């Protein structure tokens, strides 16, 4: 698999179809890190194994990365990353013809202690979408996709308001406001996040429990109908807050409320930019 990836990258860099190639490599300690290759000679730095968890589409909107080289960019995407890419394209952040998509068949990523990530069990796109990617590397994998009952979300929904507040209070007490969850997310591409504005100031920047509550509510709301549950935010959080549970709550709400799943169609926009005359009204006073 690694050989094919390197060869594909080399060809692209060589014939100039891409000026920059985003892939996975190793650092000194043997950890997998994102690598940015400019020359066909560097393709040796590319690796592929079950720890290539990063969602590289994040860097397609990072001005500091894109401006490294003029011209089209090649990027390796797994099935889950591809969904984020579709949302980015639908929100005009990435021009389809300015990127070359190298889909890699994934057999489920593993975390630090070698267990398959919970998101991969229920993932329906181990095989990247041929019609969407430029090249797909690896044999298609036939597997039975586990039914996603959103048990983590239901667990929280079973609590009464006071218990919920206590639960999230515990987590948000830990939150450092380091914004790793925001900065790792491919859909948080705003030039200046609403949290950093102070005229008017929407959420105070200091990391008290209450302020953190409102930070996470805003983030969850801004991802409603857009988040594809790639899970990077939860992985990046140093203090282990179950951020995926929050995002999946909204994914479930959007699914139930508007029968919409993000990341399926690069043309479809978030349901909050659409409406139906007969939308639900059971919550209206």
């Amino acid at each position, binding site marked *: 698999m690694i050989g094919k990836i390197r060869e594909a990258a080399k060809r692209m860099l060589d014939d100039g179809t891409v000026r920059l190639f985003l892939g996975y490599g190793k650092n000194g300690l043997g950890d997998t890190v994102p690598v940015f290759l400019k020359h066909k000679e560097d393709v040796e730095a590319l690796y592929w194994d079950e720890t290539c968890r990063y969602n590289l589409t994040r860097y397609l909107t990072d001005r500091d990365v894109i401006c490294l080289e003029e011209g089209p960019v090649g990027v390796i995407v797994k099935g889950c990353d591809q969904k984020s890419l579709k949302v980015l394209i639908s*929100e*005009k*952040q990435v021009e389809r013809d300015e990127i070359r998509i190298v889909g890699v068949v994934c057999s489920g990523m593993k975390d630090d202690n070698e267990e398959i990530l919970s998101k991969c069990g229920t993932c329906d796109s181990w095989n990247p979408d041929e019609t969407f990617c430029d090249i797909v590397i690896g044999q298609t994998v036939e597997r039975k996709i586990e039914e996603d009952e959103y048990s983590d979300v239901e667990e929280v929904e079973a609590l009464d308001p006071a218990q919920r507040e206590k639960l999230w209070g515990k987590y948000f007490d830990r939150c450092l406001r380091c914004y790793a969850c925001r900065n790792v997310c491919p859909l948080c*591409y*705003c*030039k*200046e*996040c*609403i949290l950093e*504005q102070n*005229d*008017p100031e*929407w959420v105070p920047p200091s990391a008290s429990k209450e302020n953190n509550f409102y930070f996470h509510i805003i983030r969850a709301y*801004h991802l409603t109908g857009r988040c594809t549950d790639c899970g990077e935010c939860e992985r990046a959080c140093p203090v282990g807050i179950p951020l995926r549970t929050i995002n999946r709550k909204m994914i479930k709400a959007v699914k139930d409320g508007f029968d919409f799943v993000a990341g399926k169609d690069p043309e479809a*926009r*978030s349901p*909050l*930019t*659409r409406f139906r005359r007969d939308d639900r009204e059971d919550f209206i006073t």
Partner: protein
Amino acid sequence: MNKRVLVIGGGIGGVQAGLDLAGMGIKVTLVEEKPNIGGRMAQLDKTFPTNDCSTCILSPKLLELASSPDVDIYTCASVEGIVKTEDGFVARIKKRARFVDEKKCTACGLCAQKCPVKVPDPFNKNITMSKCIRIPYAQAVPAVYMIDREHCLRLLEGKCGVCEKVCPAGAIDYEQQDEIKELSVGAVIVATGAEEFTPRIRPEYGYGIYENVVTSIEYERFLSASGPTNGHIVRPSDQKEPKRVAFIQCVGSRDVASGELGYCSSFCCMQATKDAVVTCEHGPNIRSTIFYIDIRAYGKDFDRFVDRAKTEHGVEYKRSRISGIIESPDTKNLVVRYITPDGALKDEEFDLVVLSVGLRMPDGLGGLLEGIGVKLDAYGFCRSGAFSPGDTGVDGVYVCGTVTGPMDIPETVVSASAAASLAARGLVSPDREPLGKAADRKEPDTSGSPIAVGVVVCRCGTNIASVVDVPSVVEYAASIPNVTFSEELLYACSQDSIRHIINKIREHGLNRVVVASCSPRTHEALFQKGLEQAGLNKYLLQMTNIRDQCSWVHRDTPDRATEKAKELVRMAVGKARHLTPLHERYSDVKKDCLVIGGGLAGMMAALDVADNGFVVHLIEQESFLGGNLLKIKSLLTGEDVASAVERIVKRVLEHPKIELFLNTDIAGIEGYVGNFTTKLLTGDRETSVEHGAVIVATGAREHVTESYGYRTDPYVVTGREFETILEKKNPLLKYVKRIAMIQCVDSREGERNYCSRVCCSQAVKNILRLKERYPEKTVYVLYRDMRTYGLREPYYTAARETGALFLRYDASRKPVVEKIEQGSFIIDVFDKILQETVRLPVQLLVLGVGIDPLDTNDRVAKMLKVPLTQDGFFSEAHVKLRPVDFSTEGVFVCGMAHGPKHTDESIAQALAAAARALTILTRDRIRSQAYSASVDEALCTGCGTCAEVCAYGAIEIDKEKARVNELLCKGCGTCTAACFSGAIDLSGFTNKQIVKEFEELFI
């Protein structure tokens, strides 16, 4: 052709006609006898059915007229004579001297304070005394004083002269002479109105003898906060608050005393109901009772207003015409004898009696009108034909308002607009040079200077001050940071208050103004105009509602209401600090007009607009024109309908300016005032038309009833079907001897709790037509209230004289119809007079079924974004003063789409809608509001979310940035709430302004 129109009379009719004409760019001269315009409506406290304070909804219109550059107003003036010339008329106007220079007088009131001579105050119906030099009332327009020449010591005997000494503006001029002016005009509109009956016409009511018997208009002054008693109801005899107030209806109306057959004055039932409700509101221990013959609540939401009066306010309604009043000498109370429903006589003592006096024609007017060949009817009214409302038979002379017959305010406003459209004929055309562009005043740049907020807290008479402790709110406002000036005013909306605010702005160098008063929806424009006159950008105004949403609704907790008012003021200042100057944007006007519906109203509106030279696109679903009118043979007043319809349809078909679309549906209407694009569907052919205004005339349909076996029995017909039977001499008539007409079928109950206005008159018309040909047939009419209002009452009298028997029934005890066999019924109805059930054998049932809205109203309403009423008819902008407008600019309504109405009323409304549309089409440019979205390019990521939610397609994305088309943007702000990064904001309601507004609550 001379482009000036003379409007005689400054009541609400004359004012509305003047406004519409000015709106079309036509010069207007308005002549009013009294020292102020506003007429009787200015004397009213409140108006039904919404209980709006009359002055509050009237003064914006008076101010708009007074400040319009195209209108000259002559007050204390009368028209001596009018002579016809080839290109119009020459009017001789006598302007009586005011002895006060209108240009200089600032209405400061010093002269009145010092004037030693006391004179009965005519505005307050001589209840209180006023001074020899006075202003009619606080919010009078024009706000100029006047010396009463009959009582002035200086004028009569050369003594005193105090007023000249104290007048700071040097406005007093004793030498001022009456002037005569010759004025040549293109057309004349007579809007001189009518006067009230003096109750002396019925001496048995003791008016003028018993102190506590007052007329309805005097009582209005008692109720009015600016009246003699500042809104407290007191008995004239001992100035104590009365416990029980009686209202006696039909004083002078429906009475031979007012003319051969007597007529009804149309509005007294509802005015009494409103006054009774306001009286009950003054406190739990004050009750009102109304004695009436029929309650004529025929207008929109009138029946619901009466029901609310009964159920929520506890007003008692007693059906009994009062024969006389006796005063018990010691207590000065008044004993009123009435008949109870079961026929017993009862006496009840009242502390105060209000006589609901009707209207009659003033005597002097006849001479002037006859002079130009205008004929008056038996009652002295100047009637015009049903199919030509406002017409006087003399070309160029038109009439409107109560001079054509007693009517309520909405009908007056409609007839005024109609007269304006007639008078405009030939004076307007699409290529008229545009209206003078409002010179953009040089506004000082307030961005640099420190924020100086002025706070004005309005007492609104007692409306606010009776609940909210206004002085403490003013004092509190002064303590808010950046507030450099705060003050209270009795009526912030009055012209003198506006001038006062303007002075304070200049004096204190204010660059933000907060007005705590009533709803910005009704008064924002008024105060904004004040700021403009003070040289301040009018968008530096922030209003906050401490009346409709505070004092009126927190009456029982005055302390919390006061605290709320304070916080509302602080919130308003919070937002005001961040207000920035804004400027309106201009867009061009397409000169065509779209008329939806080819019925009578649609055709008349289309003809009127087209006759004035503008292209009309007339859309009709059916394959023929005429709508409901085709099913009517003649009108109550006798005019033949068929020939009239034929004439109108012919004119429409041949009119060069009318583009007719039959069998056509509307697929969609896009755009906004001055710039609509409508997609039409004829079969499968789609065409689109561009136009600047829309007139909705979709009409209505007869109600289909299930009652009394109508659907199955040929001998049970509706009123309209009976008319066709009469016309076609149906053989059934040979067999039928006795006919029963049952009124209010399915009306005024349950969901359809409204009166369809026309069924009573239809029954009367059918009786008269029937009896002309078959005098021997017997007719029984079973009714709940006979609502043949206005000049239709004589026809009701004539119907009784044919021998038709009118039996009243209660909703709780409806007539029981038993079908013996085909064409033979027995009706049991309880006759209150005989106190027994009377059994009537009849062969034919004629049902008065009323009128329902069309089911398609919903679809049209959605396309035009206009609301429907609870009953499904189109809901106009204001029931009283904007009866043909929608709140959406550029869209108007007329005919039965607005609600059930008579044929002549439909036509009047059609001409009115045409006039209103012309006020738009005659302009080259439309000023659209200043609020618009704008994008901060540094923050915008070009994601396009804002463009997705914009209903007006006002946002495009180019070069990865969103761009707003300010002309299309309507300022709704939906995009600002969709944007993640706060890159797009809405001027006038920016994120910062809204946050700073609610943040004040938590400091």
